[in-house]
């Protein structure tokens, strides 16, 4: 590999995990995992149940703190940080079990996603008229574009609790997008969806990647989907990494095949 090329690749690494170890009271959830995510790519994490996929996502967005290892994001090493600080760094995510704010409307949920982009202090907000309203309107406009993008205009003011599952997932994606993240973590975005909803979701994910250039890391069980939309795939099993590469490489990797056959997928 020529030197300039190497440099280029080094520069475009958005996230790099180095030798991450994570355990809960002696139970190892993740052991010695290293991998990177390049800027602008769709990176999938796959693996059988309990392989540590969600834990890995939780490490990335700061909900868990690994006992060992380094995390580099956007060229800087990250030291122990609270999840909300990581949100400010430009990582947002969705959850495996929908974690919407049940008491709020779709619009408010997505507006909450703009939290890191709003800065007017409490006094301005108490007054409302003036800067706070201005800021609110600016962000509303942004959010409306997301609503338009996700084609959820008709449910804009519906309380999220009343929505069907598939739409809730879409709203959650909207909330994550509203933060204009550099990197978007999706935890099983298509779990529990029917074919049509899955297709929609795939389209949205690819459109996000395409339109906003957002780097995407996703966990997904549906191999077809993963192979379709991911640029590169990491395979985990029992907290260890057993494969990494393009979908084609991974698909033909014997270790991966064994692991999957082993749990009879």
């Amino acid at each position: 590999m020529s030197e300039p090329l190497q440099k280029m690749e080094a520069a475009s690494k958005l996230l790099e995990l180095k030798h991450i170890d994570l355990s809960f009271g002696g139970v190892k959830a993740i052991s010695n995992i290293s991998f990177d995510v390049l800027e602008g790519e769709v990176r999938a994490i796959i693996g059988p149940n309990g392989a540590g996929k969600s834990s890995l996502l939780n490490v990335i967005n700061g909900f868990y703190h690994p006992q060992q290892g380094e995390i580099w994001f956007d060229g800087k090493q990250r030291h122990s940080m609270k999840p909300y600080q990581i949100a400010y760094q430009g990582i947002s995510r969705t959850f495996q079990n929908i974690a919407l704010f049940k008491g709020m409307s779709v619009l408010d949920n997505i507006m909450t996603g703009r939290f890191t982009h709003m800065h007017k202090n409490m006094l301005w907000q108490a007054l409302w008229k003036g800067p706070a309203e201005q800021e609110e309107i600016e962000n509303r406009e942004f959010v409306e574009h997301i609503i338009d993008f996700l084609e959820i205009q008709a449910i804009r003011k519906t309380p999220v609790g009343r929505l069907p599952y598939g739409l809730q997932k879409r709203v959650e994606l909207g909330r994550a997008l509203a933060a204009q993240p550099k990197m978007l973590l999706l935890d099983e975005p298509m779990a529990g969806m029917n074919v049509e909803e899955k297709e929609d979701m795939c389209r949205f994910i690819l459109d996000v990647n395409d339109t906003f250039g957002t780097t995407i890391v996703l966990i997904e069980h549906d191999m077809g989907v993963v192979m379709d939309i991911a640029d590169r795939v990491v395979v985990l099993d029992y907290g260890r990494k057993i494969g990494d590469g393009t979908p084609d490489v991974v698909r033909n990797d014997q270790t991966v095949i064994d692991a999957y056959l082993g749990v009879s997928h």
Partner: protein
Amino acid sequence: MSADFLYTIEVILNGLMAGVMYSLVALGFVLIFKASGIFNYAQGVMALFAALTLVGIQTGQVPFSHLINAIFGTNVHHFGWQVPTLLAIALTIGVMVVFAIIVERYILHHLVNQEPIILFMATIGLAYFMEGFGDIMWGSDIKTLDVGLPSGGSLWLEEYTLGWAAEGEQYYGMYLDKLDMVASLVAIVLVVSLTIFSQYTTTGRALRAVADDHQAALSVGISLRTIWVIVWSIAGFVALVAGIMWGAKSGVQFSLSLIALKALPVLMLGGFTSIPGAIIGGLIIGVGEKLFEYAIGPMIGGATENWFAYVLALMFLVFRPQGLFGEKIIERV
């Protein structure tokens, strides 16, 4: 032994006894919370109502006499008979069971699957209702409760310990209230029998099943409605016991309903779902507040018990947010 040390022991022992008294109230809360997730604000009023009913039956009071007299211009007070204590207690239990059935049928049944705060509010409504109802039924004057409980300090203990203090120090022997000792005994019997009930009887096991998982309980064919009636009946019985113990101290009067406040820190400390928690929480609170009042109170003006109980509970909770015996809260993403 120095007198100070002996006093400290005395304070601790009395604190334990006081703690038992708190636990008696807290127990009722825990039972209902465990089985139905309801924080029963009306528990204190239930204690008052049970005690009022007991005294009323025992002394042969005419229920609603005030109302009857106001409407019909009559002047009835008492039937003129005395009911034996045990029979009166049995009858009171019967009343509490009827009460439980009514509560289930007309209130809880309509509020199944509501949020805890809503159910909490419902019990507040219930408390209001019973406060008015109890007073109308039995009148608001102070009543003496006489079920033959002993009172006064234990002389035997006092004499026995008199000589323990070092020479020349002022010491009058260890003081323990006999009523408190009886209360502790009753509490032990109550907890043991509750445990036996829940471990070794079908109904008891059903209760535990409900506490663990409503759905599971339903799927094995246990009627939630029956369970709730039973739980509220037991809670009513516990309220009666608490009412007797506290009523013996102060007479049966409105203030009895305020003992619920003393149970709150106990509950928070012990966890809402644990019967041992209620007992041990009570003991900790009792000893803690008495010791603090003894050691620190005089320096800062006294009457610290009320707030110190909460501060104590708070200190425990900061380290164990789910209470001492509460189930661990697991945060999942």
